[in-house]
């Protein structure tokens, strides 16, 4: 019985690993990439213009790898949202990330799917934007946030859904 329990626990442990790893999107040039790096304010890194705490979420963030590569953190795990709020708590510190490194023809960048302190067991899902948006807009969650966001609604009201006021939209 004990042997059976140990075997079962081992199988579960092994099967749990890959299931929780970064999700592939099938994008040309993508590769699952889990690594440690220093979280940096990209503009600061490039120009020396460095506000305190990486701009507190007002600056695009990047990952400076141990071999000196700067990876722009372009996307998070929140639909239609970037990764600045996920990485800003790690400003200037080392962080372990898991996600997709996308080496497309025109450019290379990183999608952060989860992150944790180096050596820590528990991962955090890269959905800081969702949490911040829900809090700021006094919502229970950020489900379909892009349909409810007041800034977006104001822009669509002003310019229309195709960006041209009064434009006729063909029926699908």
């Amino acid at each position, binding site marked *: 019985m004990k042997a059976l329990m140990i075997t079962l626990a081992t199988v579960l442990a092994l099967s749990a690993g890959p299931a929780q790893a970064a999700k592939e*999107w099938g*994008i*040309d040039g993508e590769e699952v990439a889990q690594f440690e790096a220093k979280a940096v304010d*990209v*503009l*600061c*890194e*490039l*120009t*020396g213009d*460095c*506000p305190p705490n990486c*701009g507190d*979420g*007002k*600056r*695009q963030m990047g990952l400076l790898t141990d071999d000196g*590569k*700067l*990876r*722009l953190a*372009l*996307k998070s795990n*929140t*639909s*239609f*949202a*970037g*990764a*600045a*709020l996920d990485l800003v708590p790690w400003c200037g510190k080392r962080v372990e990330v898991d996600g997709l490194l*996308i*080496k*497309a*023809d*025109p*450019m*290379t*960048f990183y999608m952060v799917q989860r992150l944790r302190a180096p050596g820590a067991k528990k991962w955090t899902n890269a959905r800081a*934007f969702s949490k911040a948006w829900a809090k700021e807009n006094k919502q229970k969650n950020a489900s379909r*946030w*892009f349909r409810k*966001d007041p*800034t*977006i609604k104001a*822009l*669509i009201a002003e*310019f229309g*859904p*195709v*960006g*041209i006021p009064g*434009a006729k*939209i*063909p*029926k*699908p």
Partner: protein
Amino acid sequence: MRQVLKQFAVALALTLGVALTAATAQAATSETKRVSVTGEIVDTWCSVTMIMFAEGSGHYQCAVWCAAGGIPVSVKDEDDNYYVVLKVEGEDTNVASPSILRIQAHQVTVEGDLIERDGVKYLLVTQVANDDGIVNLSHEDVGIQPFGK
């Protein structure tokens, strides 16, 4: 003799300190090149990954979503170069830049400083020299992508 050695050590430390400071400052900045770029303001994620149709008026709504969500915006020129807008003169943020939010999918000419690093062309915009508005009327062929109105 001890005094001379002490002065020499202080001088050496100061010299090394200045040299290290200069090296650090150099490492923190990258070479810039003055450029003028003409192209469409695009949602970098959808456009580069090609996970959906991502050009012109048909993708305008989604481009606004992504820009408001803080995904970096680019100027895509006619040779398919992507210039990630990392700064707009006079703004203190490059996440959901208010001025760039208002010109999604527009055809523009911008002037600024280009910094290339590790596969990315970063653009520090000093001036939007020309804005033709939305000229790619893709919605006439594809409607609103994705999800519709």
